[in-house]
């Protein structure tokens, strides 16, 4: 538990997790790489002081979400925060309506298309959520974190995680239903 975690071991286990979280939070590959790198740099700097009270991945998620929230805040302050609108994805139909990072993942063509469509749909719905809700949903649904871990990662009480997750799911359901209709 209190064994100091080596840098390369930390990166080996967490870089991809952090990148995937960043990808779901930002919705595009280049912002995701920026965010993931910022977060990992901060994590590496703070690694000597990491005491292992939570799992390293929860700790890394927390840093990633905080880094992301700071970026969103400062971008909003500067007034050019652009929430990726749903219409951006609607308008992207000529590329199969699929953000590039989802496209080439599945081997079977037919299934890949279906998965890609679902992926695009879900990502779009995620981006329609406010930042706090998005973080909660991503950590729960994509990263499989427990409420306790999410509370830890986001610095929220567990009760808040629970209610926020519920509201986020309601919003997602609405978006997906509308889209399916």
């Amino acid at each position, binding site marked *: 538990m209190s064994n100091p975690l080596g840098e390369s071991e930390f990166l080996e286990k967490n870089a*991809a997790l952090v*990148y995937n979280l960043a990808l779901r939070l930002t919705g595009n590959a280049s912002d995701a*790489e920026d965010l993931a790198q910022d977060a990992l740099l901060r994590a*590496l700097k703070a690694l000597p002081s990491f005491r292992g009270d939570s799992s390293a991945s929860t700790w890394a998620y927390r840093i990633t979400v905080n880094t992301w929230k700071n970026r969103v805040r400062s971008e909003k302050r500067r007034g050019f925060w652009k929430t990726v609108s749903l219409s951006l994805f609607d308008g992207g139909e000529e590329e199969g309506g699929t953000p590039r990072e989802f496209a080439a993942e599945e081997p079977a063509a037919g299934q890949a298309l279906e*998965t890609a469509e679902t992926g695009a749909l*879900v*990502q779009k719905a995620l981006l329609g959520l406010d930042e706090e809700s998005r973080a909660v949903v991503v950590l729960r649904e994509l990263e499989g974190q427990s*409420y306790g871990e999410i509370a830890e990662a986001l610095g929220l009480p567990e009760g808040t995680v*629970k209610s926020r997750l519920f509201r986020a799911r309601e919003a997602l359901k609405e978006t*997906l239903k509308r889209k399916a209709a």
Partner: protein
Amino acid sequence: MAHEKEALSAYSDGELKDPARRQELERHLAACPDCRAELEELRAISKMMGSLPRAELPAGFRQRLENRRRAEAEAEPARTTFLPVPMRALAFAASSLIVMVVAYEGLREKPAMVPSTALLSGSASGLAAPMEQKAALSMGADGNSAGAPLGEKAAEAPRFDNTALNRELESQKAKLGVRVLPRSLRAVRGSSGGGAGYADEDEQPAETQRLQAPPAPAPVEGDTVGLLAAVEEAAPMRRYAAKAETAVPAPRAFSGAAGKNAPPGAVARSASELKALWALMRPELPAPKDTDFSKDMVVVLLAQGELLAVSEQGGRLVARFRLGPGAPESKRFLVVPQSPLPVVFSPNR
């Protein structure tokens, strides 16, 4: 109802931890098809979310991370290895003290720049140009005092009077290689050509009057101190020489040209001009002998250096010269055929 739905959401996540609460919800679910449908939807959403593919790290991600790390580490020491805050405060205090001391000393020095002590102390920097001119004007044609060492009396009793000032001026001029034309040769500008001649016409020697007779175009700026040769091999001299390139016409005879436009040489077209000119040069300078002024004239470089050639170009005589020490004194003049053309001194490149 919302409360129940929130419990369903937690239940679907396996996060409804209170066993009693969980059992209660399960009993309700068994009886309520709506809540069962709601639970199905929640699970479907979770499944959809979970179906999002995991992305691999982009190629080169780790390398780029490493690069950024190294760049930040390189930028870091500049900040972290700087003095800690208490030391910085100390350094600031120390440098402030130095500034104050220097400023105080500077202010203390300043009153000493007043002529009384500055001039008599022999400080070259204490000799301001306007002062020099004023002093030169007031001292008359007393060429003999040139180079006179500073009197002991003056040194022991620093006092601002004309005699002491003139002595100091002469000693400074000797040091700097500045020569002042004898008054008899100073004014080439006719009294008609600007009213800047002598106050007392009778005082002018015949020679000067002869020079003035055909009022020559006067390139001379001012008529006060005749600086014929400034500090040799000094930067001002080089600038002065460069100015000469811009075709400042030499006067008919040598003229007491003051200021930066003065040519670094002169022309003697008669024996008397030559004699007067030589009086200005150092005595050890060999004079050209037996010049026949009915056919020839003498072009002289007043600055230290070598007069290379005199040739006619475009209606004027161009005297090429090279400044600098090392050339024999005899190279400072050339005997050339008499010519009424203006002489231009031009540094050789």
